């Protein structure tokens, strides 16, 4: 292996730029993410070997006592802990969703609102944040968005569908900041920074609560979502939401109770992973895999169907993306981007960090925030003086998550929100979304800057 010259670095930089553009144009290209990153990874590995820039000694694993195992070239670059967390958590969420646990909570909250649109917005907003925090943003948007469609139809308030779905879409990215496992950028950056689950939660929670409440209040104001005052209207709305029967979401009481217990246990275990002996060594990926496996026992005779239902595109996307990032590091591309980041950070503690957050937000609004997080985490990890306490990590985390609220393609959950709108005949163009979402995203990003720079 030798250090690549500038021409080689620029060739790989062009390849990375092409991949980012292709990911942004995913729907136009009719190609799934994993295909785009997979093709890029294949080309990158081929070119890397051709230019002799890969450290080939990395591809052997010394097992001790003279046992050497050779590793394929595409293995060492993959963050297997991240893949394990995503695989285990996806399996767990998919099985748990079938128990009706999340739907039961959703229907209960709908009834609790009494059918009042104002309270419904608050309950659905809160539910979106919590589900995004403990499931993932896409699952949260699917659950709350689906219920929003059904309940607003039932309440004969279809005009509120666009505002509700938009606000919920924006809140998924706020809720996605709550825990280390709430979003993939959190997992990637948190892992690179060495931030513990509990520390992450304690630092992010105050912002999530304040940003969540402000987003809902702002939404109610902008879209004129008001409380019902007429007693007859209130009575009718209550009668309509009471036709939702939460018991109908439960297919088996035993499975439901088991899923509830498992869900609480998973959150507790993830919180305590850094403190429990043995588990500490095995890591969060192991915890997620075990919980996924135990939940899959419910369908042990047909677990192949459960596996088939997983989002393999997402998992393949992560795997191949890590390979691309690894090659880019050896090709000097990350060093090149790191120089630009270094200029930003060099602007000073406040201005530098603020610029990094803003740049992360703007970049993640038009590209996938996962490659952004992977690249920036890699760069920050190799920068001198950036330890786990540095607020630069948080700039990337906040920027990568909240930037997704600027455009409809900025995050997977806002894509889901817009897809639900289109499915139900609501036309919202790219610029229509930007116009509607901008006040919210601007307030959230400004609030994040103040929080990261002043509080953290």
């Amino acid at each position: 292996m030798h250090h690549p010259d500038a021409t080689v670095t620029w060739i790989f930089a062009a390849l990375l730029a092409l991949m980012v553009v292709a990911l942004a144009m995913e729907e136009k290209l009719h190609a799934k993410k994993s295909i785009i990153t997979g093709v890029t990874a294949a080309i990158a590995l081929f070119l890397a070997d051709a230019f002799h820039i890969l450290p080939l000694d990395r591809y052997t694993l010394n097992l001790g006592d003279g046992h050497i195992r050779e590793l394929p070239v595409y293995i060492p670059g993959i963050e297997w802990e991240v893949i394990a967390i995503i695989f285990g958590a996806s399996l767990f969420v998919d099985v748990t969703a079938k128990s009706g646990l999340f739907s039961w909570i959703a229907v209960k909250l709908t009834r609790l609102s009494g059918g009042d649109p104002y309270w419904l917005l608050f309950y659905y907003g809160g539910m979106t944040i919590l589900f995004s925090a403990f499931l993932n943003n896409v699952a949260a948007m699917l659950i709350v968005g689906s219920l929003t469609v059904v309940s607003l139809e039932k309440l004969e308030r279809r005009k509120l569908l666009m505002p509700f779905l938009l606000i919920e879409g924006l809140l998924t990215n706020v809720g996605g900041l709550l825990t280390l496992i709430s979003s993939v950028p959190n997992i990637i950056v948190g892992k690179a920074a060495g931030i513990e689950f509990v520390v992450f939660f304690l630092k992010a929670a105050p912002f999530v609560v304040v940003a969540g409440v402000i987003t809902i209040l702002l939404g109610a104001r902008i879209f004129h979502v008001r409380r019902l005052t007429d007693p007859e209207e209130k009575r009718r709305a209550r009668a309509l939401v009471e036709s939702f029967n939460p018991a109908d979401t439960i297919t088996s009481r035993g499975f439901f109770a088991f899923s509830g217990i498992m869900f609480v246990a998973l959150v507790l275990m993830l919180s305590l992973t850094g403190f429990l002996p043995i588990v500490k060594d095995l890591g969060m990926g192991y915890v997620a895999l075990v919980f996924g496996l135990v939940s899959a026992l419910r369908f042990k005779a047909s677990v192949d169907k459960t596996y088939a239902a997983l989002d393999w595109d997402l998992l393949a996307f992560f795997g191949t993306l890590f390979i691309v990032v690894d090659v880019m590091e050896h090709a000097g591309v990350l060093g090149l981007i790191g120089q630009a980041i270094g200029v930003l950070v060099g602007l000073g503690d406040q201005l530098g960090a603020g610029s990094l957050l803003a740049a992360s937000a703007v970049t993640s609004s038009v590209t996938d925030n996962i490659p952004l997080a992977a690249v920036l985490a890699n760069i920050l990890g190799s920068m001198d003086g950036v330890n786990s306490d540095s607020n630069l990590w948080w700039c990337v985390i906040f920027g990568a998550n909240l930037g997704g609220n600027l455009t409809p393609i900025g995050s997977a959950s806002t894509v889901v929100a817009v897809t639900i709108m289109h499915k139900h005949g609501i036309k919202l163009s790219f610029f229509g979304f930007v116009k509607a979402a901008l006040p919210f995203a601007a307030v959230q990003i400004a609030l994040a800057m103040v929080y990261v720079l002043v509080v953290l």
Partner: protein
Amino acid sequence: MPSFDFESQFRGTIRQGYSHEPLSIRDALLITDLLPARADEVLATTRRFLGRVRALDRASWRVTTEGDLPIIPDLVASIAARPPDLIVTYRNLRDLTRLPRNSLGVYLDTLTQATATPVLVLPVRRSDDPGAVELKQRLVNTDRVMVITDHLTHDPRLIRYGAEFTENGGTLTLTHIEDEANFERLMTIISKIPEIDDALARRTIGDRLLKEARDLCETAGDDLEAHDIDIRVETYVAFGHTIPAYRELLVTREIDLLVADSKAPDRFAMSDLAYAMAIEFINIPILLL
């Protein structure tokens, strides 16, 4: 990301509810093609039969006899001009047919579709019919009423009329027979579509078809109890061949009055099931809404 369709699950949690409202029939019209004396007899039989129906406590009766039964357009016009709350009549008015077989007669056919007023079809026969006396003796009370509930039309009137026509202490049977022949035809089609799992479709569609009807019957039972209506509510929801299944229920449960919906959307003709029942069940009073 869960592959589960949450929207379907949430739609599935919505129970079609029933909310009872009392019924008051002030103006009842008995339409006959009989001489006045014989018409009075039928009126007496009818009033005895409906004597303990709460909704008819304060009803006044009008009777149309042979002499003043107009031609159909005039009858419809006169009903439109002064719509009664209930029409009581029988099959084959002014028909030459000796026995009520295979048709309702043009008067009854028109009355059920051209007016919004509920029509009670009595199993009255001409006096020279050998079964006439026996039938008259059966028109005693409305102790056992059966409603063919229709959860698809969301029309609460069927259960409302059924409950109000069941006398105090009586039994209201809410029924829904899901047509097995139609279901099997659908399953045969599904068995030819490789993308749809046959066994799953049979189980889930079957369960869902019955659940919606059962939910409506159960919520109706709860609501009637909440309104302190002194009747017992029973539910029968199952797959079956509709006419034979309903016939068996009428016999085994000794039903005094059957309540069904006769209106079909987007057409003038009577609904298929109501027409079939009106033709087949000639020995039982049927209240057609």
